[in-house]
């Protein structure tokens, strides 16, 4: 994966496939670190699968024999001195937390975070995505449910809504990053 935002898109897709109807994506910016947590209420994994989940030759899919999402994430996080922690319980859900040292020379760029987050919401109309951005005391949170409530029946996947959501998140990210620590 070329950038951090693509990892978010990729890992969140696992949550979608796990049959979640609520997926939380939280990004916490601190001085040098970026913590991203993706937490779902999907089918979860048992200990046996959990042990093998960062093995590239372990996958739940049937269309091919490799599963590279989590192994790539682990590689990119660890090469900055960061970590990946995965918690999961069958029937309860899964939570993946990756920590990146964004000041490290081997850290991949952040990439197009706003369109990633917008596409997650508008690309999965049946799932309530909760997006949370945090930096010190600044918190921005938006959920698909809030947007759908306002939309009152207009599909969230309509291109006009997609562009609106993207622009809203662009502004919020700018705002959160502009505040000096």
């Amino acid at each position: 994966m070329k950038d951090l935002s693509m990892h978010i898109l990729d890992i969140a897709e696992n949550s979608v496939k796990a049959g979640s109807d609520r997926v939380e994506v939280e990004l916490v910016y601190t001085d040098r670190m970026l913590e991203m947590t993706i937490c779902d209420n999907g089918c979860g994994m048992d200990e046996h699968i959990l042990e093998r989940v960062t093995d590239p030759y372990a996958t739940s899919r049937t269309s091919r024999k490799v599963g590279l999402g989590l192994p790539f994430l682990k590689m990119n996080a660890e090469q900055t001195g960061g970590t990946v922690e995965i918690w999961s319980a069958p029937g309860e859900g899964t939570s993946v937390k990756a920590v990146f040292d964004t000041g490290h020379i081997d850290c991949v760029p952040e990439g197009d975070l706003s369109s990633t987050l917008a596409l997650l919401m508008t690309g999965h109309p049946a799932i309530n995505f909760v997006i949370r951005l945090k930096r010190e005391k600044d918190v921005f949170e938006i959920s698909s449910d809030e947007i759908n409530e306002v939309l009152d029946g207009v599909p969230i996947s309509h291109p006009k809504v997609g562009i609106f959501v993207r622009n809203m998140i662009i502004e919020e990210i700018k705002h959160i990053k502009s505040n000096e620590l």
Partner: protein
Amino acid sequence: MSKVKNLQDLKKMRDELKGKISLREKSDHPESMVQIKVSMATCGIASGARDTMNYMIDELDSQAIDAVVTQTGCMGYCYAEPTIEVTLPGEKPVVFGHVNTKKASEIIEKYIKNGELVDGIIPDSYETIDGK
């Protein structure tokens, strides 16, 4: 920028959209709009599916084509990523492979707007990820 103001703006946009969409009696029938699914698994993302999806959203918006653009998992055509599935109202879904932004533009101009088929269709009766 406050979220409240943003949501108010969204409300305004909803009212405009509602007027436009319901004029064509579409609001309760999303299946009567063009439906586009972009395959967004590791393979698709690495091949640029996100750019394709962004491009389609921008292009459909600027041409004022009512559509729903959603994501789906790996359709099993990793060699042909980015892949998209397009369903025109009343038609069977068609899957296109190697959809970069150039191909996406061709698909919008020819297939979505005029129903003409374009190169790059992945044939056979595939199963979408939802069906597996």
